[in-house]
């Protein structure tokens, strides 16, 4: 028997994606005509995905306004049909889309807001992991320190932002008037992570951002101290690095010490 189901499903999906094609001929017209019946599905397809984006990008929607956000959603849906089984991941390319697509790329603050919000989404349900304590840190024998490496908590998201995305998010979260977009002179490093069930974010100075990335790359304590001399005087560098580490341990950012 000729298999007709694959062609039918391709035609149906093409209709949903592009609102055109041969699908209409396959549908019974009665109290509602075939086109209207198909349109119910085409409308629902876009509405459902726009709702998913609204949930994940509250600040971006506040910055754009509901109508412009709807227009963005439709453009993004057309350019990036979902390819994951879970709608949870549908918005993962929105930051890149905004950075690369006219007219949005002319307002680079939008891409920064999207990347900031998506980092929070990723931190929210990232894997659970052990959290090292200050006592664990104190128990490391002094001789182990130079070669010591550090496991970062899997919820940690490291991004660099050129714009005041976090201030805009803050205002949107409290339903307050949004601050005007503001560009920093240099990109600013941010860390976004989960401690317990709570999401936190914090900006990083350039040496902090470098050190956190170096820890993530698997550099040991001696290598990190060496690298930090770019910004910190050699005689203070070990104390400086140990101080940052202790802070991050307290923040729940360090899952373990590897020697």
């Amino acid at each position: 028997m000729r298999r007709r189901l694959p062609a039918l499903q391709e035609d149906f999906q093409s209709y949903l994606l592009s609102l055109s094609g041969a699908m209409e001929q396959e549908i019974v017209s009665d109290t509602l005509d075939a086109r209207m019946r198909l349109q119910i599905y085409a409308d629902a397809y876009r509405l459902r995905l726009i709702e998913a984006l609204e949930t994940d990008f509250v600040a971006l929607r506040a910055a754009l306004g509901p109508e412009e956000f709807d227009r963005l959603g439709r453009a993004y849906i057309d350019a990036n049909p979902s390819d994951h089984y879970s709608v949870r991941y549908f918005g993962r390319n929105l930051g890149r889309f905004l950075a690369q697509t006219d007219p949005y790329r002319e307002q680079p603050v939008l891409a920064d807001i999207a990347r900031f919000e998506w980092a929070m989404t990723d931190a929210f349900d990232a894997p659970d992991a052990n959290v090292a304590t200050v006592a664990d840190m104190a128990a490391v024998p002094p001789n182990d320190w130079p070669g010591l490496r550090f496991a970062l908590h899997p919820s940690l998201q490291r991004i660099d932002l050129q714009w005041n995305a976090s201030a805009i998010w803050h205002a949107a979260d409290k339903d307050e008037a949004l601050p005007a977009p503001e560009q920093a002179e240099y990109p600013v490093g941010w860390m976004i992570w989960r401690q317990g069930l709570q999401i936190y974010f914090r900006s990083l100075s350039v040496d902090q951002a470098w050190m956190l990335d170096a820890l993530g790359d698997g550099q040991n304590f001696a290598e990190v101290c060496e690298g930090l001399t770019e910004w910190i005087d050699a005689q203070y560098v070990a104390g400086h690095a140990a101080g940052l580490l202790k802070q991050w341990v307290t923040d729940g950012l360090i899952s373990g010490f590897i020697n």
Partner: protein
Amino acid sequence: MTVSLVYPPIGFGLGLRASHYEDILNGPRRIDWFEILSENYMVPGGKPLHYLDRIRAEYPLVMHGVSLSIGSTDPLNRDYLRDLKKLAERVQPAWISDHLCWTGVAGKNMHDLLPLPYDGETLDHVASRIQHVQEFLGRRILLENVSSYLTYKRSEMTEWDFLRELCNRADCLILLDVNNIYVSSVNHGFDPIEYLDGVPADRVQQFHLAGHRNLETHIIDTHDEPVVDPVWDLYADALKRFGPVSTMIERDDNIPAFAELADELDHARHIAVETLGSGTHSRRRVVPA
């Protein structure tokens, strides 16, 4: 003595929603069990799995998915099946369900429950995929009738005839959504009682109830309103035909306070007692693993 095909009934449940987590854990116990949307918990960690484990420690759960795409002509999604099985190992659900539909082809996902044409080709295709999934999961699964808004010219049989034949071929179970029967009966002009009569009674494991939007020309299945009277009436008819089947109310949007949904569920209990008499709807408690 006949051996029952279905799992033992577990009473009256609600869909588990994040906004109710604290009320469920701290408030009075008014619900026998919860249905989780599987995909919401197919994530690496954090809040969803934290609350899932805590609620599972106190209540039986069933898993309800939207991404199996059992009718798609794409190959079965192995990543999805692997993750589903992993979640089932964590949850130890009373049962696992998804929908009689397809959600996309060519690797794309429309995230909608799209209808299938009811003909021999679809029957062969879906039955063999159900068998594959059941083998992989090591258990019978439930498939739910979806609300639909169109009929394919090529369909050769009714939805209920298709469901009955599918159960025979694939040895699967049915999640009968009473609201979806009502919605589709209006959208396609069939008699919902004829639908109930056509469904094999020994395969019905669970009922869904939900609210919808009536747009006069057609009804959209929105799950954002209370259950309407004609659906309650049809629920009573379904109880008469199928007996004390485990029942839950789905609310996915415009979600009210937990107590309000628990009240609505009490109405379902009330109808069950009125229809079947007291004592027939066993509130068997499943001991959490």
